[in-house]
């Protein structure tokens, strides 16, 4: 049967109205990007400067630079130590942190939208409406995906402005963001991460009883991102253009697999029977 987009949009509007009135959902979606886009860059820009002026970290910075991949080393070859430190932290080490935003936002929204509806015992009347499984699923995916990506893109925009404004003098009028890596990260990797999270929650939604349980299970997705952050910090892994493209391709394949499994498991009867 053909999917009626207006029905999916109806689910989207209803869920968004509900979610936007739920501080349990909205608070982490606002707080995490706020810390990542404003608080951390400000600390990073001003903290190394203060420390450097006292001549404390010079040796450590040189040592740290030695461990980073040559691709980044070439980008900072003409910079002084302070510029190099700020550049590495803000454009290189911070990059994988931004994958946490779509992961967190989509996991919180999808958990509320799928499992939360079960928990609040509102799903039976919804399942009784003449809205098909596909329309229902599409509406719920949209309400998890669109706000997550909106928050990610908005965070990236704010972060770029904050970083460029604060480092304008340090880099003598040169803007260090956006660059190709970040664009790939935000418009390629971030949607793929958001989609994988939503797919996983759809897949487990018939088996969990509520919001918390869904969030806890979807929390396993943070592990690869933490590994990515640790890999970048230790120099074991570099999130360059080639790596990012490969990562996006793998994520898209995973997305498709998770989505089909989720779709197979999204059955009205199973969702309903698990309520009792």
């Amino acid at each position: 049967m053909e999917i009626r987009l207006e029905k999916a949009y109806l689910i989207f509007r209803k869920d968004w109205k509900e979610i936007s009135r739920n501080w349990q959902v909205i608070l982490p979606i606002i707080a995490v990007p706020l810390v990542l886009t404003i608080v951390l860059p400000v600390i990073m820009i001003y903290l190394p400067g203060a420390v450097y002026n006292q001549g404390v970290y010079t040796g450590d910075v040189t040592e740290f630079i030695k461990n980073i991949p040559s691709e980044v080393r070439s980008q900072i070859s003409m910079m002084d130590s302070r510029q190099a430190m700020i550049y590495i932290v803000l454009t290189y080490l911070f990059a994988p942190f931004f994958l946490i935003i779509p992961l967190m936002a989509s996991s919180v929204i999808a958990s509320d939208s799928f499992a939360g509806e079960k928990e609040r015992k509102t799903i039976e009347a919804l399942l009784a409406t003449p809205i098909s499984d596909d329309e229902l699923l599409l509406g719920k995916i949209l309400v998890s995906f669109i706000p997550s990506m909106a928050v990610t893109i908005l965070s990236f925009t704010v972060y770029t402005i904050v970083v460029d404004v604060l480092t304008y003098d340090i880099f003598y009028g040169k803007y260090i963001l956006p660059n190709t890596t970040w664009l790939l990260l935000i418009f390629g990797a971030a949607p793929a991460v958001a989609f994988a999270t939503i797919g996983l929650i759809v897949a487990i939604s018939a088996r969990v009883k509520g919001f918390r349980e869904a969030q806890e299970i979807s929390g396993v997705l943070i592990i690869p991102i933490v590994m990515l952050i640790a890999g970048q910090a230790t120099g074991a892994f570099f999130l360059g253009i080639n790596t990012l493209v490969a990562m996006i391709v793998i994520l898209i394949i995973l997305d498709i697999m998770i989505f089909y499994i989720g779709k197979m498991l999204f059955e009205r009867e199973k969702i309903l029977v698990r309520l009792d």
Partner: protein
Amino acid sequence: MSIIVAHGLTKRFGGLTAVDNLSFEIDEGEVFGLLGPNGAGKTTTIRLLACLLIPTKGEAEIFGYSIWRDQLRIREITGILTENPCLYERLTAYENMEFFAEAYNITDPRERSIRIRELLEFFGLWDRRHDKVGKFSKGMKQKLAIARALVHRPPILYLDEPTSDLDPESSKAIRDLIKKLSEREQCTILLSTHRLEDAEKLCNKVMIIKEGRRIALGSPSQLSMMVNEYNILEIRLRHPLNKVEDILGEINGVDRVEIGKTVIRVETKRDVEEVTPTIVRHIVEAGGEVLSVTPIRPSLEDAYLKLVKEDGDKA
């Protein structure tokens, strides 16, 4: 004309048979009660007819649409009050109604707003339309949930335990509303309940089910008569009357007489209206002063308890 026809409807969850070979027909305009103890299979039966569950075997047709093949069409023509009110508590009453009106294909905004207003006014919720449902009492939520189920003018309405969890006052209010509704909206109602009062006051026909099986089916009075062979007449006298047992025992049609101090219970297999004048005449001629004559109809409760017990004994 039967608009719901179920034949051999069965639903198993693993080893548990929730609905066991149920067959019944519901006529247009009828208020049909599914009566049974908790866990009897009432909710599962409603969920099967609302196409929320797929039967293990058997068939049901609603207005000729099969629950196997025409699920979306059946959902369009039925309204359901689920066991829980299933309302979005962060949305207002109006927003809840509007969402479901659109979900049930009322696409014209004007038609939608007229219908929502009509229903919210009928249920006395119009003044609270902009309040979030989370602030509503249980009774108000139940009214709103029924209004929601009716928003698309369904010819068939399923009401699953509409008065459970409500205080006696709210239960009565909901019962009165359902009674009014069945007349006003002209829809066929399938009502599941474990409350005999609901079944007795609201239903034209009642099916008693236990462990998913049909125990009995008929109008409340037919069910009562099924287990009560005799009609009972209670006669109150001003003063005790001597030899009343002998006097009444001679009357043709009187099968049993129980004598209290001033109250006489007469049991008859005949229609009470047929034997009452003769009985009263005999008492008066014997010098008795009759204060009142009350026919005691056997209650659905008596029938229900007896039928459920008999079924348990058989098992």
